[in-house]
């Protein structure tokens, strides 16, 4: 879905999407307000260094005393929030590291994108890599870090090699004040979690560790560490150039700016799209030509929630807009369940995947999550009795707040939202057994199948 997906994006962008107000900076925004992907829509090619500099200009260099704090204040005024899933205020994270008493600090760009339904980070790193690299260097300068790492998943697709070549080219042009090191930690669902990355970069396994301490307090080799998603850093690179007012010209007051969205299963034109926060969900789904008879939408990714199509399409795409249904943009995933498909079967497969991809460190992931996945599978494919259903509901609730990381919480949210959104199917499956779609339908939501051996975390 990753690259070919973006290929379809370019031609479909105009779909039902006509804005009357003029773009504030036409030169650096695409026709429909795209910022990160403006170069892609203009040229249809990944932005090389020359394109990048021609479009956006050089990033400011923070050398003077107080420059770093000024940039952090600018980010705070822009209201930038993290794009890795949690949506935390970026300036708060920057300040925590910048204000740490230890002067040795580390910055990590998280491009792991372990969420199988998401392709935005990889697409961004392919189409506009220099924005991410600019953002990483700016963030390092802002917090006073002399060490910068960029982590991408170990998938063998050569992205890490491409990025190293680009960094070498930037060094040749004297663009960056510090060296960026590219890493490929193991590609597991939980290994993109900030503490897991930090653990791996410190020489350990790519498994989450107990928080607190937060990574800003004790991160890579015990040093205060900023871990930011690559899309967050790309936005930061633009905010540093064009300022908070420019950034706020798009999006909502609460969630300013644009965001990358992956339209996955159920879309006729799946791909990565850049949208303004606050855009009606129906309009976002129309970009990928999601048919109007879809049953439900998985919002946020495999940590997200299933919501009925009719209810979600009336909302606006933003954390505050989706909160009405208890959903959140998460990692920017919208996956539709087409008419005729079985949401319980899809959820059962995803829960099985989440159970297999846990680090099996805490009680809920050792026992509760596998048991939940197994019961859910019986619900979808047959064999669950009434007692099993009660056990399933109890275990789903018990997964919350009981792990070192939020892996069990995310799985719990997904399972609970499925039991709610597909309530009628749950009753039907329990009464008359699995539906034909569950038994014979092909899997729609992608999962990586390979099991994890114990030595695979390094």
């Amino acid at each position, binding site marked *: 879905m990753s690259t070919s997906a973006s290929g379809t994006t370019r031609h479909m962008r105009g779909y039902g999407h006509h804005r009357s107000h003029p773009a504030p900076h036409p030169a650096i925004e695409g026709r429909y307000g795209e910022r990160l992907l403006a170069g892609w829509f203009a040229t249809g090619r990944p932005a090389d260094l020359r394109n990048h500099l021609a479009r956006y200009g050089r990033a400011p260099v923070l050398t003077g005393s107080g420059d770093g704090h000024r940039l952090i204040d600018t980010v705070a005024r822009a209201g930038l929030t993290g794009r890795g899933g949690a949506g935390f205020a970026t300036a708060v994270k920057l300040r925590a590291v910048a204000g740490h008493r230890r002067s040795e600090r580390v910055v990590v760009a998280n491009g792991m994108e372990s969420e199988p339904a998401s392709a935005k980070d990889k697409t961004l790193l392919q189409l506009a890599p220099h924005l991410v690299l600019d953002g990483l260097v700016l963030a390092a300068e802002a917090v006073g870090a002399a060490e910068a790492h960029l982590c991408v998943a170990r998938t063998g697709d050569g992205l890490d090699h491409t990025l190293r070549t680009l960094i070498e080219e930037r060094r040749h042009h004297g663009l960056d004040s510090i060296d960026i090191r590219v890493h490929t930690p193991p590609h597991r669902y939980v290994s993109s979690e900030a503490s897991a990355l930090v653990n791996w970069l410190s020489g350990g396994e790519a498994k989450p*560790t*107990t928080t607190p301490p937060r990574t800003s307090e004790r991160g890579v080799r015990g040093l205060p560490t900023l871990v930011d998603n690559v899309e967050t850093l790309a936005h930061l690179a633009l905010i540093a150039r064009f300022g908070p007012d420019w950034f706020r010209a798009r999006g909502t007051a609460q969630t300013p700016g644009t965001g990358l969205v992956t339209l996955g299963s159920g879309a006729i034109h799946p791909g990565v799209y850049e949208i303004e926060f606050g855009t009606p969900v129906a309009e976002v789904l129309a970009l990928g030509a999601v048919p109007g008879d879809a049953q439900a939408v998985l919002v946020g990714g495999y940590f997200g929630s299933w919501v009925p199509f009719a209810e979600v399409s009336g909302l606006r795409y933003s954390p505050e807009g989706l909160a009405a249904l208890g959903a959140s943009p998460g990692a920017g995933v919208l996956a539709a369940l087409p008419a005729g498909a079985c949401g319980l079967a899809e959820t059962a497969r995803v829960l099985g995947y989440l159970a297999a991809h846990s680090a099996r460190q*805490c*009680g*809920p992931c050792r026992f*509760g999550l596998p048991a939940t996945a197994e019961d859910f599978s019986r619900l979808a494919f047959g064999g669950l009795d009434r007692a099993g259903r009660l056990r399933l509901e*109890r275990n789903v609730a*018990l997964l919350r707040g009981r*792990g*070192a990381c939020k892996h069990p919480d995310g799985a719990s949210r997904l399972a609970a939202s499925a039991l709610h959104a597909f309530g009628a199917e749950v009753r039907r499956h329990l009464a008359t057994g699995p539906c034909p779609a569950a038994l014979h339908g092909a899997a729609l939501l992608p999962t990586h199948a390979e099991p994890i051996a114990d030595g695979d975390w390094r």
Partner: protein
Amino acid sequence: MSRIHRVIVDRIACTGHGLCAELFPEHFALDEWGYPVQSAEPVRRDHLAHARRAVAACPALALRLEAVRSRMPADRSDRSDPPAAQPTNQPSTGYRTRP
């Protein structure tokens, strides 16, 4: 400003011995695999001795008692005399408590 106490569980260190639920049943129950299910409430002042005993007894050293400042002066946990009608910190039923 007053202080409230919380038991922090290191979920990775915990291996489900279950002593916490035995020594501090007002605060801890166990799931069907013997892992703690903790009350969301802070530790009541009159339960602090139980909390300390559970922390000291945990074979995995997975528990820690932490005093945090509360901005809410009227915190229920800090009243010397908790309202009788309030339920105790016992988590809702449905979990096995070890005999």
